[in-house]
């Protein structure tokens, strides 16, 4: 097995190699078999900080800022601007109902048109640029039957291709602090699949952690 040298993997600079040598790690085997927590404490490395650097948080508070943001993102991807942390793979919008709800309910249809424009931008990101898009939305109840349905009305309901309902259900089968995730819409899988998810470790309480990814 090889000796650690510069450029063997992303992030392995000369400085880092010196730090690792100081901790007694010279080869790839040493690194792989070492306890990372201990190593990072010894070398003052922070791989967690590096992971956090890959997350870009943008704050937008109305739909026009959101549309601007998405168009900038599309522009930077088409010009192939590469950042230090690599290409954008997933866009999370939390929450879409916060920017769209103020637009709905009036007598003019501009609000709905803006919502559909936002939907089109998100879908273009997903389909043409191959980025996973995840949005969060609230639920409301049906007037007559009391059944839960997603907020933002009928026109929005056609937009997402996969939908997962998260509920806090009290009961003997659901341990405290856990939520139930059910698949209510999917282009490829049968609906009705349910999983109990524990907040904190983000895994199923009994088995090993399994993270659900929703691709549009």
């Amino acid at each position, binding site marked *: 097995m090889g000796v650690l040298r510069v450029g063997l993997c992303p992030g392995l600079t000369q400085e880092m190699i010196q730090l690792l040598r100081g901790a007694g790690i010279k080869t790839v085997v040493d690194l792989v078999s070492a306890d990372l927590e201990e190593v990072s404490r010894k070398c003052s490395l922070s791989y967690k900080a590096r992971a956090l650097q890959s997350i870009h948080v943008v704050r937008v508070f109305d739909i026009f800022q959101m549309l601007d943001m998405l168009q900038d993102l599309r522009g930077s991807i088409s010009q192939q601007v590469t950042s230090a942390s690599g290409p954008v793979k997933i866009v999370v919008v939390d929450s879409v109902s916060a920017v769209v709800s103020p637009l709905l309910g009036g007598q003019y*249809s501009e609000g709905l048109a803006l919502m559909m424009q936002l939907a089109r931008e998100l879908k*273009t990101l997903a389909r043409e640029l191959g980025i996973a898009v995840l949005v969060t939305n609230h639920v409301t109840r049906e007037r007559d039957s009391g059944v839960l349905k997603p907020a933002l009305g*009928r026109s929005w*309901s056609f937009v997402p291709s996969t939908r997962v309902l998260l509920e806090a259900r009290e009961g003997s089968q659901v341990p405290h602090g856990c939520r139930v995730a059910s698949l209510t819409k999917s282009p490829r899988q049968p609906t009705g699949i349910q999983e109990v998810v524990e907040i904190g470790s983000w895994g199923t309480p009994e088995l090993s952690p399994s993270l659900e990814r929703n691709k549009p």
Partner: protein
Amino acid sequence: MSGDFRRAESGTELLARLEGRSSLKDIEPFLFADEGSPIHGDILEFHGPEGTGKTEMLYHLTARCILPKSEGGLEVEVLFIDTDYHFDMLRLVTILERRLSQSTEDIIKHCLGRFFLVNCSSSNQLLITLYSLETMFCSHPSLCLFILDSLSAFYWIDRVNGGESLTLQEINLKKCSKFLEKLVKEYHLVLFATTQTIMQKNSNSTERSSSLKLPCEEVDIDYRPYLCKSWQQMVNHRIFFSRHNSESSNQMFSVVSYHLKSNNLIKRLFSIRESGVHFC
């Protein structure tokens, strides 16, 4: 070049237009009453709220058309226009794999060779695309099935772009509808178009009964027409999709197929399996 002169057809164009486009009468007997099977020049509308199986039914019809005759297909070509990025190629391939007795990569590729997919992102683009598709129909005499999913995708954006005038709001859709009718009649195609239920059903019963004119009142349909009159008048056949609440754990869907001319109405139930739509 002066004024306007009648466009002359070349011999190949004439032949391509009139020559046997295969019949789609047997495309799905469950969906149609005996006299209502789709014939050349028919325009059918799938209407329903989200998650009711409209796109799945389109995959079902597509698979039926592009599969080879030896595997129970019709071996004809299909043109699919997708206006809201709904189409999922992986799902179509899964359905083909499940339906073929031997699903090799070659056979799947051969089937997909009969499938043409177009994406449109605005009603202007849809109109221009339709104009440019005319040459495609000329050069592909085995292209019989024309699918448009969905026709109502640009409704709100067009409404706002048209401002106060209803004519301006509907102008693109009206032109698209007229041109679709021309293409379907001239080239002997069958058009299946989906429209989404985005309007609340009007609680006023008189308006509902006048707009729908269904023979039996017990069929409860969530339908409030909102697209332009040109489109509504050219549809021969309306098929309504809805969820069917059943006791079984499997989600069932209901389809009501209404032939406008003969006034025939049939209702069927179906479920969606991995191999696609399965009628009960």
